[in-house]
């Protein structure tokens, strides 16, 4: 078996907050193989964006990586010098962000920004860079690429900006793309188009994608495997089909139940009660305890450790649940 492309190993990221030091990411581990799409799912505040940024060490100086390791192609990213890190960013690992318009420099044209990144990663003349830039725009299915290269970000729609951002992320021909909520800020139809684009790109180039989202439906359509994040920890980790057919963790079940089903009673929402605890005020026992419908006595004393309950299926929970199907699962799969 070949080595995984990306390994995140017990990663811990600490921030200083009003209430003191907080571990926004507290021992997160997962792997990504070449060509695979992994979905990282969780509510706001669970640490998924921080994890994404920590991989490229973009959380500094506000946050500090205080534990664990991140390895890309076997090499630890945490020990790299700034120059080596820069060679990884964009060239080995690319990243797109949630707000497409905000992730582009407003005072430069799209073409300017593309040429800049192209020249940073490849040696080419200005003319070559221009040519490549247009090719990239074509690859992300941006209509009329020659003209759009001369446009400013504020002249483009959200969906188009995200395509440009994608082009920028892929300019260095990376092997891994980290997509941090790439469709959250977009309309539903545009979301669908972007998902299609991501799948196409993955098929064309064998790109591995770390897809971060709070949208289970999106992840169902794209990812091979899913990791569910809660309060800085992974609580369930399994192939997509199993997550939807046989979720084990009460939180996963709650998330699936909370998805509105087309045949459900109108006006009835099965929300998970309570809110995510503040990262600086986490209990020493199970973090989901306060909101959990399946809790037992042990949950209030001991923090569950992640364990395998099946082939490629990990869960961090004390309770052994019936692997029964849950109502309201979305259609579709990878």
């Amino acid at each position: 078996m070949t080595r995984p492309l990306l390994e995140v190993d017990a990663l811990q990221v600490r921030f200083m907050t009003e209430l003191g030091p907080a571990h926004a990411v507290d021992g997160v581990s997962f792997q990504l193989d070449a060509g695979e799409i992994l979905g990282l799912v969780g509510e706001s505040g669970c640490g998924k964006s921080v994890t994404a940024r920590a991989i490229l060490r973009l959380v500094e100086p506000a946050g500090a990586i205080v534990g664990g390791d991140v390895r890309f192609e076997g090499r630890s990213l945490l020990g790299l010098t700034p120059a080596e890190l820069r060679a990884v960013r964009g060239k080995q690992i690319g990243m797109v962000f949630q707000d497409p318009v905000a992730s582009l420099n407003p005072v430069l044209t799209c073409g300017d920004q593309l040429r800049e990144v192209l020249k940073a990663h490849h040696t080419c003349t200005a003319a070559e860079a221009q040519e490549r830039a247009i090719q990239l725009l074509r690859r992300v299915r941006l209509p009329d690429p020659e003209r759009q290269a001369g446009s400013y970000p504020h002249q483009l729609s959200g969906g188009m900006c995200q395509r440009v951002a994608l082009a920028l992320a892929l300019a260095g021909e990376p092997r891994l793309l980290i997509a941090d909520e790439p469709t959250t800020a977009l309309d539903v139809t545009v979301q669908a188009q972007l998902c299609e684009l991501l799948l196409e790109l993955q098929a064309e180039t064998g790109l591995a994608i770390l897809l971060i989202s709070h949208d289970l439906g999106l992840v169902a359509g794209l990812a091979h495997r899913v990791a569910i994040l809660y309060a800085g920890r992974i609580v369930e980790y399994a192939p997509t089909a199993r997550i939807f057919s046989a979720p084990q963790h009460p939180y996963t079940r709650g998330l699936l139940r909370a998805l509105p089903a087309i045949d459900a009673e109108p006006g009835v929402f099965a929300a998970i009660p309570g809110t995510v605890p503040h990262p600086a005020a986490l209990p020493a026992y199970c973090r989901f305890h306060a909101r959990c419908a399946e809790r037992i006595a042990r949950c209030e004393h001991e923090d569950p450790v992640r364990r395998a309950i099946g082939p490629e299926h990990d869960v961090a929970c004390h309770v052994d649940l019936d692997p029964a199907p849950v109502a309201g699962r979305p259609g579709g799969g990878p």
Partner: protein
Amino acid sequence: MSHVIVRRLAMAPLLVVTVAAAVFFTARLLPGDPLERLVTEDTDPDFVPRLRRQMGLDRPAAVQFGMWLRGAVQGDWGESWISRRPVAALVAEALPNTLRLTVLAFAMRWTLAVIIGIAAALRHGRRSDWGLRTATLVVDALPAFVLGVLLQLVFAYGLQWLPADGMHALDAAGLDGFARWRDTLAHLCLPVLVLGIHHVATSARFVRAAVLEASTREHVLAARARGLSDRRVLLRHVLRNAMGPLVTLFALSLPGLVGGSLIVETLFSWPGMGRLTVGAAQAHDQPVLLAAVALVATLVVLSNLVADVVAAAVDPRQRREV
């Protein structure tokens, strides 16, 4: 966008007249008779009424304004009541001296402010940043004349490194070439220093805020994620975006070029517009006072206009909103 500029510039003459009117009517409508100051014990009783008629002070204020304005446009700004020299000549002597001082001080202030501001923004959160903020508060509290007096005390009277006041040494006419140049420079030192650093702290604070705001935007993070070098990110992504607010700030401080040197000129006996105005106020010399204030006010308002236009031109996002 160009028609925004044209529209603004077209307003300029109207603005000038409005400002001149505001100043003029403020002066004329104040209670009291300005001429009575000129009366001494042995003044001819007919002198004042004659002077009043001569100067048109017995006409309605609006008419007076018209007369004054017409004269002003033609270059006749009246005569000083004290020295009897034409006001226009006094101003023509004073204005370039003021500009010499303020332009240098301006250049000094902004160069320092940009360097300090960027340095502080890059060291955001660390102790040196906090140090700058505190220094700002302290220096801001020091009025120009206190700072000037202190510097005068130390460098001019105490150490005697620099001359205390004036624009040239008394025997400057006899000097030539390098010695003359050095004399001018020496006299410029203290006043430029006081004017220059007086608002550096505030300007630096604004530069820091602008750079900081630009550096926390998402596209800067994205640029780093794309593997661009720190220097490139700073120059093309942070500073380029901070330029807009910075240029606006810079333009907004332009009015100070003309109107900001009152105290310093008085302190260092620098023969500029400020000292002219103060002298006229102290001596109650109305024609000079009126002309000086009107001129300075007009120039300031015009430079505000320029500032607005520059601000609108700088940000490409604003170009769209015409």
